[in-house]
């Protein structure tokens, strides 16, 4: 049961400034809670740091979301779910990877069944380093992402379309079958 192949044409022209402005002020996120990073999300959402003032709210399904948060180490089995969730999101979509594990493996640098670099499999727009990053760092990451979107630099979803075959090849190297 593979996902439907995405069209590979990249329409650049009608990517207008106003849309960027809208999508930066209303980032709906789906947080894929792998590992310990999920623990840092509740303080970011609730009254101390309150990310809703930037229009960032958690959503229940990837169809509604613009922002995918990968919060911790990514096992091979999890990666497949992450890729599925990512492909079910609608363009434009952004990915924030969270903590050191998705950057370079972190604590699990020598584990046999975690991947070391998330960027090889799906395009990541913002990395938030730290083990774990504090809510201040997360808020900072969100603001950075918003700035990037405004300036048109957060183009992970365009990269994913452009190099779709290469991303797929990288993904298929880690999991043998799609449908398990």
């Amino acid at each position, binding site marked *: 049961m593979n996902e*439907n192949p995405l*069209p590979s044409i990249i329409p650049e022209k009608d990517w207008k400034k106003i849309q960027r402005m809208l999508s930066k002020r209303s980032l709906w996120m789906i947080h*894929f809670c792998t590992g310990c990073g999920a623990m840092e999300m509740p303080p970011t959402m609730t009254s101390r740091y309150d990310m809703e003032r930037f229009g960032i709210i958690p959503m229940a399904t990837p169809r509604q979301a613009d922002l995918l948060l990968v919060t911790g180490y990514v096992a091979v089995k999890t990666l497949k779910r*992450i890729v*599925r969730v990512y492909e079910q999101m609608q363009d434009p979509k952004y990915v924030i990877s969270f903590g050191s594990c998705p950057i370079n493996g972190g604590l699990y640098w020598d584990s046999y069944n975690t991947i070391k670099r998330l960027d090889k499999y799906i395009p990541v727009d913002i990395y938030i380093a730290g083990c774990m990053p504090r809510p201040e760092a997360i808020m900072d990451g969100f603001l950075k992402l918003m700035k990037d979107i405004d300036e048109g630099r957060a183009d992970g979803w365009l990269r994913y379309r452009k190099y779709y075959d290469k991303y797929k090849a990288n993904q298929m190297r880690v999991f043998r079958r799609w449908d398990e």
Partner: protein
Amino acid sequence: MEINLLWGVFGIFVLLPLAGSILSYLGKKFAIYIGIIFALIPTIMLYPFYAQNISELINIGVNINLVFDTTTWFFMLMIDTVAFASFLFAISCVKKKPEGFASLMLLSLAGANGVLMSRDFLSLYIFWEMMSWSAYLLILRSSGEYARRYLLFGILSAYFIIMGIGIFYYYTGSFLFSDSAGIPLMGWFWILFFLVVGFAVKMAVVPLHVWAPYAYSSEPSFVSFFSGGLSKLGTFGILMGMYGIAGLSILQGFGTFRDVSLFGYPFALLGAFTAFIGTILAIFQDDLRKLLAYSSIGQLGYVMVGLGLGTPLAVSGALFHAFNHAFFKSLLFLGAGAVIYRTGKYKISEMGGLGYRMPFTFLFVLFAIFALAGIPITSGFISKWMLYEAAIEKKFVIIAPLMLIASVGAFLYSFRILYGVFLGQLDKPYENIKEAPLPMLVAMGILMLPLLIFSIFPGWILEWIDDIMKSTGVGTIDYNTYSYYSSIGGANMLVLWIAFMLVFIVAMLIFLMKKARKVDQYDNYLAGESPPYVQLHAAHNFYKPLRDTWAPLLKYSIDRAYEKLSRFFVEGFEEIKKIYTENPQDYAAYLGIAFLLFLFIGWWLL
């Protein structure tokens, strides 16, 4: 001249189907096609006979009276159209002994038309039995058990009607409806009671409804005629009994409560309870045919409410609702039949996703469900509206909430049909399922048209109903071509349609601004999972939470009460058998007791 016209009408509507019945029996393989022709001729011939008023007394030893007026025409319009559509549907799906099916269907059609034309008890009873027995034989084609249940209640109904007729004859010495002068009020009470209860069996009013879920589970092409067409004869009978024979003045002679006869009020209450109980039971059915059967019971409860209340608005609402019910319920049964024909399954939870493969069937069923639920873009709304307003304007605080909450329940079971059968996930075995055959679609299309047309032009049908109301002397209703009014409100359907079209265009414009990519049904958010080859159709035990809350009440069942009663009788007869002790002395004692008993009774009587 007049008598020739009457015989012409009688020939077209009764004798022609009878002849067709014999011909199609001989027709063997082509039986269904012969049936279509003989059902089509009366349906088309209704057109030139609109607004005729033909009445003739015929003496065949006793006087009988055959009439063709708007009442007859109105009811014939539903029954003949539904019969024609059922025949059309049967082309593709009745394979087993088609000659029996066609000839019995035509026989019951002839019987039904005869009932509608007769204005005297003798011909009414003869045609009634003709219709009733051919229906019995048609149910017998599928299951003996179902047919027995129907037969038991059919006979009960016939007994009640005979009792009513007997009392009528006792007082008047005539079978004619018009010879009703000089019956005392107590006599009227019993005549009307027996007639109404007898006809109410045909309408499956609680607690006389237990045959319906079984009888409506037989062949779909017959059931659509049975539920849509033949059950309207019950409506016709009650209308004739209460308003044609007796009339308002006698009904109000029983005493009135807010201008509503005290005789009619209990029946209206019974109808409201029927609507409620039928709806609640329909919500929990998993068998598609049983669900529709209970829904049919519930919807005819509304008709009963209208007939019981007896205000002009209520009776016209009842007639309109009977008309709508004839079309949308037979459409639903045909849609269910098409689905059953393609899948071979009856359970809602075993289907799913058929709407993507059978789009036209889905659209027809959707429209019928709109009419059933009373969505204002169909004519189903208008009749329900009339019934509600009739109850509310007279301030009936028990009937009105029961009807209203039953109509909310109708949304529940109608969504169950839509979701369980047509939406949701398409199961593997049905991947290559085809659309229903063309005759089936045509049959469904024919039934859909009136629901659409009369939602925009309710005035057309209300004109016919107004004629009926005038001829029965109930009163007049307030309407024009597009709108209709009660004493407390009203609505205009043309404005609604235009407004709906305009806002729909607005929504369409916003919708068409962006294109959408189509994905298959397995590309679904299930927390990143995509379980292969597992049917994820949440239709099994759909209303489980509701069922759990209703469980304490659902354990009381009228079905089981009847079964207990029958067991009681069986055991009782076992006890009675014990008095045959094979001892001559006991017999002698019985003889003596019986002799004394007769003596005392005779003495007391004389």
